[in-house]
């Protein structure tokens, strides 16, 4: 490995806090994830437990910050140099904007100094109803929505182009590291690569839940995959620079399509094109009889 192997990576989607969701169950597992993160070149993690607004017993900002503080002191006593910031992965319920506006929960990512980002959990099957309107309302409340793992959503995996207008309106698109390396299947991988290639996705994150199946190490593997296909600079932008800007609450610097091509002009050739081609061929053939 060369010295430039994605050092100082920032992971903005990581279920690091114990006992809050389907992530680690206790502090032991939590610390194991933190150690694995540091070993694989991650310097900063935004801890993002699942939050479902309106359901009882959801952790508020205060609870999350408190646990982050405890994790920090445990890490310090171990001499583990991982920076941990509070955050949340918020489920996009229809009245999300109202929940966010109430301010109490304060589920934004990272430090939220100047620009505040909020990570939105995307369901794996369908898009939430009126998703574009929901994103607009979140933005009206002064928050920039970060769309988590759209490539794992069945609808968007088939048509990643549908994310282009959302990204153009200012939403940040996050793809999951394991999707890029094929861990969630071929369709998710193709969609994720399409999104990073065309400068639509701006952030790669682990969405780590444990140290075995969905491990923090995925980010380094994704970095290598990206560096191989798109170059070291593109990999650093996606795994280091842009995620760091999100975690620090800074505005994102301008998008750079990894292949230098405009996003709209290229359409991913899909099954539909293939079918259309075959049909045209069949019709030509039939008419020639």
């Amino acid at each position, binding site marked *: 490995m060369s010295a430039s192997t994605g050092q100082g990576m920032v992971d903005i989607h990581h279920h690091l806090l114990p006992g809050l969701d389907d992530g680690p169950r206790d502090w032991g597992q939590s610390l194991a994830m933190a150690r694995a993160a540091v070993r694989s070149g991650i310097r900063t993690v935004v801890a993002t437990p699942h939050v479902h607004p309106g359901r009882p017993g959801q952790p508020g900002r205060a609870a999350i910050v408190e646990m982050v503080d405890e994790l920090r002191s445990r890490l310090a006593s171990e001499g583990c140099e991982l920076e941990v910031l509070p955050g949340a992965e918020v489920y996009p319920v229809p009245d999300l904007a109202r929940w966010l506006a109430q301010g109490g929960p304060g589920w934004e990512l990272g430090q939220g100094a100047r*620009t505040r980002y909020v990570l939105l959990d995307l369901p794996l099957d369908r898009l939430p109803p009126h998703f574009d309107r929901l994103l*607009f309302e979140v*933005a*009206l*409340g002064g928050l920039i929505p970060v769309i988590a793992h759209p490539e794992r959503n069945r609808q968007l995996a088939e048509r990643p182009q549908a994310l282009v207008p959302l990204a*153009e*309106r200012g939403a940040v698109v996050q793809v999951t590291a394991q999707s890029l390396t094929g861990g969630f299947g071929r369709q998710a991988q193709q969609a994720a690569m399409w999104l990073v290639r065309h400068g639509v996705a701006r952030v790669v994150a682990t969405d780590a839940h444990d140290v075995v199946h969905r491990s923090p190490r995925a980010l380094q593997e994704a970095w290598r995959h990206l560096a191989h296909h798109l170059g070291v600079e593109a990999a650093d932008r996606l795994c280091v620079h842009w995620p760091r800007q999100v975690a620090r609450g800074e505005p994102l610097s301008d998008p750079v399509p990894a292949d230098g091509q*405009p996003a*709209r*002009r290229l359409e991913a050739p899909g099954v539909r094109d293939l079918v259309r081609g075959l049909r045209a061929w069949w019709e030509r053939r039939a008419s020639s009889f």
Partner: protein
Amino acid sequence: MRRRARPSPSERGGPMLVMDGERYQLAAEAFRSLRTNLQYAALGRPLQVLTVTAAGPDEGKSAVTANLAVALAQGGSRVLAVGADLRRPSLHRAFGLDYHVGLTSVLMGRVALEEAVRRVEPWGLDVLPSGPLPPNPAEMLGSRQMEALLEAMRQRWETVLLDTPPVVALSDAALLAARSDGVLLVVSAHQTPRDVVVAARRQLEQVGARILGVVLNRVRPTESGRYHYYYYYYARDHQRRPGPDDTAAPTAPGLALAGLDGRPPQPAASRTGATGEGSR
């Protein structure tokens, strides 16, 4: 809209504002003469709300809006520049603002107009950025709230400039043009095909907009002299003339205000050194 199709000159590193400093005196002078031309055009009917648009993307609408706003403010007018391009806003960039609170926030009733408007010093110019970008821009710009908001703006400012999306293929600009006192059509020299400009004109005329004229942007200063105002009049032969300035294409535009009403342009500018190539 192809957002990343082609970086605009300001994205290529040049500034959007040319009105301060020594470096772009030629362009600043062009904007001041554009201001004068507008004052002449306003003699007949008052021009309070102006729509600035272009036929296609990347012609420099926002840069023209920003610089014209500064020129008007320098002339002592109370000016509001509005980022009414809800597709691909860039007016805010000229003034180093962000766009996260602005026009759409006001239209949706989230903030009052006074809170959303930003004062830009040293010109004492007011700017209303676009606000978060909605999924239904045309609907918002055509809404009754927008109508009421324009009325409120007329009460408070002497001149309101609306920076809008391109007019061809999108209805946004036409909607606003119909509600404003005049339209400036920005045309990027050597770039926009003639039939596209004609289509833009037709679209604006269909909604009864009053087209004041064309602002010809990115005119290449030639080696033959410093002051060249090209008049654009259905010019077919804007061929490139390779010159020393070609590589550093002028982000500081040469500007001209020309008629689009079927007559040759009125020589309203003080210097009408149109060359044989530009005026026919």
